[in-house]
């Protein structure tokens, strides 16, 4: 913390990144884990030893061994292969959900923060109403109403996350609405939209990135929770939540590996994003370091 090097060489952000990484090995670890998950998501299906859907009733419910690292499930499918392949689906759901809420939240928040007035009040009331629901319960209701598909899990997760983004952007835009640089941009002939989009909004990006990372973990948990209760993803598809749900039936007979490994992966993914969020926050806003 205290030994800040006086020289400022090269890219300031990169140096700062290196500094944060060295200072906080946990953040470095989280970035490492994150790359692992990205690799799994992209190349997982070619790396796994078995077809995640291939059943083999002769070898059902086998404990972890050299053949099957994570054991096999009730239909003799390889749990390791399924866990790795599931990464893509789980990450896709949460990335898409977070992206949708990022875009919609940004537009709503920026408009409300910049123009204020009745627009702002209406938006705030709507967000308050969304937040008045226990969010997971609202997501359940949305999926039930829209229909039980994977896309609708994405929409539901996106909708319940919009308020968080809209609030952050609104606050960031609002305090800069009358700032010198914004007025200067207006004075040199930029329209309202242009000023808002290219001069004011970029300032909201750093806190938004922190929000994204913290939110990703939550989105994964939410999506896995929804499929755990039987919404969205259909049984043969490998997905962490549904695999834990299937494994739960075998835990009371002592077949721990069916539920443990997908649950562990899910936990690790969420943990990674949460750690990264904390790391990003250190990077973006050193004052809020805990």
């Amino acid at each position, binding site marked *: 913390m205290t030994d800040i090097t006086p020289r400022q060489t090269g890219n300031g952000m990169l140096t700062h990144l290196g500094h944060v990484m060295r200072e906080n090995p946990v953040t470095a670890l989280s970035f490492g884990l994150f790359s692992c998950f990205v690799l799994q998501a992209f190349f997982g299906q070619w790396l796994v030893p078995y077809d995640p859907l291939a059943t083999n009733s002769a070898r059902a419910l086998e404990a972890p061994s050299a053949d099957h690292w994570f054991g096999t499930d009730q239909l003799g499918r390889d749990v390791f292969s399924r866990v790795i392949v599931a990464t893509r689906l789980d990450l896709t759901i949460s990335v898409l959900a977070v992206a949708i809420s990022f875009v919609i939240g940004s537009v709503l928040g920026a408009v409300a923060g910049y123009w204020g007035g009745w627009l702002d009040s209406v938006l705030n009331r709507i967000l308050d109403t969304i937040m008045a629901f226990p969010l997971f319960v609202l997501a359940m*209701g949305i999926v039930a109403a829209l229909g039980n598909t994977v896309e609708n899990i994405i929409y539901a997760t996106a909708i319940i996350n919009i308020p968080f983004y809209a609030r952050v952007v609104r606050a960031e835009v609002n305090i800069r609405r009358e700032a010198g640089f914004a007025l200067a941009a207006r004075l040199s002939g930029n329209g309202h939209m242009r000023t808002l989009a290219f001069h004011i909004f970029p300032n909201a990006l750093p806190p938004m990135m922190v929000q994204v990372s913290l939110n990703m973990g939550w989105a994964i948990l939410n999506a896995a929770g929804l499929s755990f209760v039987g919404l969205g993803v259909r049984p043969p598809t490998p997905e962490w939540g549904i695999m834990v749900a299937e494994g739960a039936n075998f835990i009371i007979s002592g077949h721990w590996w069916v539920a443990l490994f997908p649950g562990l992966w899910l936990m690790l993914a969420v943990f990674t994003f949460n750690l990264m969020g904390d790391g990003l926050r250190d990077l973006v806003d050193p004052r809020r370091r805990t």
Partner: protein
Amino acid sequence: MATRWLPILWRLVQTIPVVIGVVIISFVLTRALPGDPAVQFAGQMATAESIEQVRVALGLDKSLPQQFLIYCKALLQGDLGQSIATGRPVLTDLATRLPASLELTLTALILSCLIAIPLGVLAAVRQGSWIDHLCRVLVTAGVSLPTFFTGILLIYVFYYLLGWAPSPLGRLDFIYFDPPRVTGFFLIDAALDGDLRTFTGAAKQLALPAITLALFTLAPIARMTRAAMLTALSSDYIRTARAAGLPPRKVLFGYALRNALLPVVTTLGMVFSFVLGANVLVEKVFAWPGIGSYAVEALVQSDYAAVQGFVLAMALLFVLINLIIDLSYTLIDPRIGFSSK
């Protein structure tokens, strides 16, 4: 005297638009979305005629505003529709199952407050010590834990391996009789009945699900307590109190903790939102006969009236809880006036 009641009244008035919003959203969820509710309500064996009958019976042939009025009128009469799966009014189903959920949720919250608040206080007082690190690890791990996964792990360890816990199936083992229903809370009912065996039986059954939920809520409460205590401890009035030679205990609990509790109570509102959601998952894992598992069964059977009734009931419960939390501010901190909002 009037000035003391005015902010409370104002806060009550503020609840009205939120409740209206909640009702509108749950109406939108039931009726106005793509897909034909009449087909859903008529069931899978429906013919074109029976779908048309259902459409008229539900008032779906009328315009949306008219439908909304009908919906509100039914709500005011406590009519949430009929559950297809159980064949009873949704409201009756929810009412009989609500105490089970509340018993679980409240026990979990009390448990987690009992652990998290002292932990947060200790972590703040001995900043940088092992207890502070423990607190940090717990907080980061706690928010990453999927509740349903923790529940399953606990079942494996405490039921399968150690055999301490009873089988994770419901509120009471079948060898006991349900206590006579007074409040619907088995612990309280058994205690009122003076039935110690049923009481311990219910408590054993409750322990694992409550611990699962408590682990989940531990993190935000401990984090907030620690942060609030740190802020309070570094403030001027604490320095003054210390300089005036007040005993450390009095400074810590009389001044610092009392002020730190306010943000903690605020966090409790948010925690409730998570808890009510996590409740659904925990109830499914432990086959707990509360409203969460009711909703999950209803979802599986495409019993939409039940699901929508559940969503509405949860939202209203959450609004009520937030109202109680806000009102309890005035008890903890008389400085707060809601009129400033």
